[in-house]
């Protein structure tokens, strides 16, 4: 059941990619409507998938690398629906769909087995920590997609470049606020479970690095009025660091966070 849904999810994203590639090449009638319908259907499939997994596992699917990556993919799409409300851009839809496909491929490299929660994970903090991480990283993902549009000078968007830039800024603010909550809930939880709120574990350290990079973005914008190209580059690089924090660290630098 879950696998069929995953296939449907994947297929819908693939269609989104194809439709938007065609739109980039040559505008098609109702192109934006078709693209948004495909994305909405993908989100609905994702939500059904979550419900199925929850009922099969008897717990909310929040607790391992596979589940987190899946949530991340769905979160990106849900946020994308909000961001693209008054943004007509095939390039944006294309980059969101490609990113989601990338996340799904990463997810499929993890074990999808539903396992009971080990003692360290049985905490309300798990849900706060993971839910805020999805919002934080989802915002950074979309900021990076918009950053690519900005750098590509996509003429087909209906928004002016300063408007795109402003939207990137708002996404970074949202992401940064939530990343702060991610780190704080993680720290409070670590104190509760291990008796140490900060241990310089690689995952913790890299989340701090991410936080510092986006803090630098906010400061350069505020004080030097860094906008446009330079800050678009910063959100793209910032997201590369986010992806490293999420997946690179787990593979290359395992530490206490070895479950994710």
């Amino acid at each position, binding site marked *: 059941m879950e696998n069929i849904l995953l296939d449907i999810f994947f297929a819908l994203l693939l269609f989104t990619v194809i439709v938007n590639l065609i739109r980039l090449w040559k505008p098609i009638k109702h192109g934006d409507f078709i693209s948004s319908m495909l994305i909405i259907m993908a989100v609905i499939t994702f939500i059904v998938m979550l419900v199925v997994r929850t009922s099969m596992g008897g717990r909310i699917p929040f607790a391992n690398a596979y589940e987190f990556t899946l949530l991340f993919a769905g979160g990106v799409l849900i946020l994308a629906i909000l961001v693209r409300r008054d943004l007509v851009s095939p390039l944006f839809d294309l980059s969101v769909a490609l990113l989601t496909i990338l996340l799904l491929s990463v997810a499929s490299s993890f074990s999808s087995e539903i*396992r*009971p929660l*080990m*003692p*360290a994970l*049985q*905490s309300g903090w798990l849900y706060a920590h993971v839910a805020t991480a999805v919002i934080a990283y989802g915002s950074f993902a979309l900021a990076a997609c918009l950053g690519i549009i900005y750098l590509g000078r996509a003429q087909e968007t209906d928004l002016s470049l300063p408007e795109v830039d*402003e939207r990137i800024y*708002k996404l970074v*603010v949202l992401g940064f*606020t939530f990343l*702060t*909550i991610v780190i*704080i809930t993680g*720290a*409070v939880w670590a*104190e*509760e*479970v*291990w*008796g140490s*709120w*900060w241990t*310089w574990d*690689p995952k913790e*350290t*890299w989340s*701090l*690095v991410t936080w*510092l*990079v986006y*803090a*630098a973005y906010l*400061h*350069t914008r505020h*004080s*030097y009025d860094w906008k446009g190209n330079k800050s678009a580059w910063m959100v793209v690089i910032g997201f590369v660091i986010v992806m490293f924090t999420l997946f690179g*660290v787990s593979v290359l*630098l395992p530490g206490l966070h070895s479950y994710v």
Partner: protein
Amino acid sequence: MMINKWLKQLTQMLASMQTAIYLLLIVGVVSALGTFIPQGQTPTFYLQHYGRTTSMIINGLGLSNLYHVWWFQLLIILLCLSILVCAYRRLRWGKKISGLASLFMHLAIVFILIGALWSLGYSHSSFIEIARGQTIALNNYGFEEGQLKLNDFKIDYYPDFQPRQYTSDLSLINYHGKNIHQSISVNHPLKTGSLKIYQSTWGWAIQLTNLTGTTETIISLKDKDLFLLDEAQQVKVQAVFLPDFKDDKTGIQSKTPLPDHPHVWLTLLQQDKVVDMAIIPVGQEVQLGSYSLRFDTFYPYSGLQIKQDSGVYMVFAGFIILLAGLGIRYWFAFWGKKGAN
């Protein structure tokens, strides 16, 4: 005079946003670097793994203990000072709510770092292993006062025998005039004042009696541990606990982790070579080499992390201020002037 001028220059530098951004990025890069270098190893470890020149750099700059080396801490102190100087300047400017929120947000970061520094200097933590029924005095482990007793310990399993939870039933006696009785488990520590007790690990302990010779001696050891029976001859006994011993041809094993058919697997070693072995149930005696041993009983022990730390409350207060400041700051920035952008 010189010092005054120098101080002024330093303040000016710290007040500049450029310095602050460079500091942010440098702290970021250095922290990231530390995740690629194994931390807390001995100098020879780095020599073996990185060769001469690299290991000289690592050992010389203190990269083996990067997050505690003086210059890293200096960087953090500079960052704090930079935040403070900038905050002071801002204090004299705007009095808008969003500005005030941002001020508190920045001060919160300094507050968190001071709390962390406080913990570094004034916290004490210790790991203890305590058997069921045992009482220990906390001042033997560097704490002020009080006794700790493990009344009971239990493990819950999922149907597939994965551990679900470990629970220690504890009594804290005579701690600042209080007696506290509480069950702790992973994620649910005991907290009183600045003292916290965490469920950390657990294991089985075994009690044997050495019946060799004229006097009986009691031997207590942890599962899989070795006990030295004869110093001169280097004779040791190892005890492996088999809670649910299953006797078949597939090898020596325990069917489940539940103590339903408890046995102990004793191995006698001399100069680290196996001399003799036996598997016996509770109450039984066995002749191993020239030794006569009896398996008396078994019991679980609990591994507890005990910590005394008041800095953490400063840190948590900083977290709350930071979040409140951040929330207010951006609430006003976005919803306060909606329509303006």
